[in-house]
């Protein structure tokens, strides 16, 4: 518990330093409001527009979550299939890598054409961009098991599905969570890109509006909320990770 308070203290401290240097820069160079507002005006803008920012935050959060969950739900089973079957690997892996060479952000305008201005194209971009790191990390995790472990499973008379569930999959969980964490940040980028291209809702829409009106204080307020959203999302996955793999080296709190 003491360690946790200690940790919190340092986190708060690092934020305090960031805000203080921000204020110093604004005053030192006498920055005009429309270029770089200080922390004060930004929080005023945040308070004044709180209701609208909050409603747009829910919208973006739902989009990110949908894209992320679909990405995980497709990527993990796909990675399993690729690891289990060499035939499926030859069939699925090359086209998957090929689609990754297309910048997914560049697909957003196409998705608008296909799916309209609703939530679907934003979820699609979030999905596409979050998908790849989960597949790659799951494959690496599943492949990194000691071959002797699988021999041991065979000598225990275990059918392949049981060796997979009891040995391979738990062994791969730390790598899968690594992929999920990277994907969580990318899903936010994807949802936002979708909102930039064509939307009348979400934090991305709010950013475009604020920028168009040269309302830089609102722009910064939105950015603060956006980074808070991305962080909340990242830590949500960290909490899930701590629950799922308390045994892993990355989760051990007490020294040996």
């Amino acid at each position, binding site marked *: 518990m003491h360690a946790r308070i200690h940790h919190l203290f340092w986190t708060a401290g690092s934020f305090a330093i960031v805000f203080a240097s921000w204020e110093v820069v604004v005053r030192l160079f006498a920055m005009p409001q429309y270029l770089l507002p200080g922390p004060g005006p930004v929080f005023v803008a945040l308070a004044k527009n709180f209701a609208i920012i909050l409603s747009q935050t829910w919208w973006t959060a739902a989009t990110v979550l949908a894209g992320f969950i679909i990405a995980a739900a497709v990527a993990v089973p796909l990675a399993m299939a690729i690891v289990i079957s060499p035939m499926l690997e030859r069939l699925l892996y090359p086209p998957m890598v090929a689609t990754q060479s297309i910048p997914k952000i560049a697909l957003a305008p196409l998705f608008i054409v296909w799916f309209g201005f609703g939530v679907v194209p934003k979820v699609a971009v979030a999905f596409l961009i979050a998908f790849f790191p989960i597949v790659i990390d799951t494959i690496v995790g599943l492949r990194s098991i*000691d071959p002797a472990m699988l*021999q*041991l499973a065979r*000598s225990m008379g275990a059918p392949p599905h*049981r*060796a997979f569930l*009891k040995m391979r999959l738990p*062994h791969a969980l730390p790598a899968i969570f690594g992929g999920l964490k990277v994907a969580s940040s990318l899903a936010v980028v994807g949802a936002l890109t979708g909102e930039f291209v064509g939307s009348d809702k979400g934090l991305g829409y709010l950013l475009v509006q604020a920028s168009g009106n040269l309302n830089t204080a609102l722009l910064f307020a939105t950015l603060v909320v956006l980074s808070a959203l991305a962080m909340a999302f990242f830590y949500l996955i960290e909490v899930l990770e701590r629950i799922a793999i308390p045994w*892993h*080296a990355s989760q051990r709190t007490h020294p040996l």
Partner: protein
Amino acid sequence: MSGRSQTVLGTPTVVRAVKSVATGEHGAFIELNAISKSFSTRDGSSTLAVDGVDLDIGASEFVSLLGPSGCGKSTLLSIIAGLIQPTSGEAHIEGKPILAPYTNIGIVFQNDLLLDWRTVLGNVLIQFEMRGMKREPHRERARALISSVGLSEFESKYPWELSGGMRQRVAICRALIHDPPLLLMDEPFGALDALTRAQLQIDLQNIWQSSRKTVVFVTHSIEEAVFLSDRVIVMTPRPGRVREIFTIDLPRPRGLDARAHPAFTEVIHRVNHLFEEMGVIRG
């Protein structure tokens, strides 16, 4: 030297060296007849790992396969386990050909292969879960076994909380919990420090003496092989062939004094010379 060892032990022959045992002899627990195994390499050619090995292993016998790295001793162990099939020759256990992984078996590898997400008890009980059996009926027996290797206080610890020697003890428990007649060990103590290793050798001997399982033990330590075994099978460098078989008639249980026994040092000496002859050790 040999005269002295005879008087000490009171047996006419302390150490016998035999070129090879008779093959096709029925009643042996494990029979290997003219086993060869070649592996294809990346450039498309093939390497002969094991070449024409004839070996019979009796029930309750402790046999070591001793040889330099890459001599095919681990390959031979995998063939006995049914994990790989020989390129030619036949392998039988209890008269039946080994065509699939032989599951009435316990295996211990150099790497303990414990599951990080399971406690010591959970790691031992995985043996039953992998066989599709319930773990509950075996819990008490597992706890007794864990206690017998001195780990009763650690049964709910995770592998990363244990030392290397403790981890390997858990791996041995996992290999014994279902009471298999055959125990295969592939350099199980290879990664341990000398003191832990000596202790585990004594512990293994005790386990073997009370359970009388057939043990096939792969090692490249001459001392370890001689200390533990009824017979030591010395293999040639690749391709692995049986070079010579030493029968170790030292009385059991063998304690630390056994290592100073003239018969013990004599075999060590002879195996060393054999390795020198084969070019494994250059004098």
